[in-house]
């Protein structure tokens, strides 16, 4: 009888203690890493031959060309 009581107490204790082992349910998202093929940079080609400054100049002149206030009236 005493043995049975000890077993029952052990099972009850295990059941009560299980509640204390609850893990945090807040998910922490991990930022994924790109899994695809690597891409080249826009200036790494036959046209610019790796000259980043030349590419930036080309793009900037095109960007500034969108400002018609400068194009038309010089101001």
């Amino acid at each position: 009888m005493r043995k049975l009581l000890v077993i029952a107490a052990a099972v009850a204790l295990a059941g009560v203690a299980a509640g204390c082992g609850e893990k945090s349910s807040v998910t922490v998202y991990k930022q994924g890493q790109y899994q695809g093929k690597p891409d080249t940079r826009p200036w790494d080609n036959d046209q610019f031959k790796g000259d980043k400054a030349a590419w930036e100049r080309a793009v900037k002149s095109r960007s500034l060309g969108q400002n018609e206030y400068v194009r038309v009236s010089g101001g």
Partner: protein
Amino acid sequence: MARMKFLADAERCIECNGCVTACKQEHEIPWGVNRRRVVTLNDGVPGEKSISVACMHCSDAPCMAVCPVDCFYKTSEGVVLHDKDLCIGCGYCFYACPFGAPQFPQDGAFGLRGKMDKCTFCAGGPEADFSAAEFKKYGRNRLAEGKLPACAEMCSTKALLGGDADVIADIYRNRVLKRGKGAEVWGWGTAYGKPEKQPPVQPGAKS
């Protein structure tokens, strides 16, 4: 070089859809896929406003965050691109995107949803620059040619600006100062405001 961005000026857009046509023509986009669209608010009502919408190449892109196969990447110029060889066409990016930018070709049998297609800022994709594979999957790589996106360069009223964020923000700020209108738009102060250059807000002016 900072980040590449688009900027749509609702005061100038005349809903000509020239940007949409330029994009379709430049990249030979199939029927049913619209990398760029013109959205009109209060259509038919005097004072209606239109803006051209495509992938905005977000600084913290939600499509990149939700992609289960991690096929998105951001270039050093801030352009959000993806690898079509990896894409499984699940559509999560479409649900995550606040602009409806991801497009899915549906020309196959049984309502097949193909691999995602979206605006590349005319920067191609992860294939060799100017290769046939790059053109077939992602369209023309104008950025590697030292050019800006076709939609922005084609825009007749220059309502759609594209390029380095700092440069186009300066163009837009200058434009607003010249016309004395537009600074009342929500977010102006955060995005483009320079306190010493703020134009006076005219009472009763519409945005």
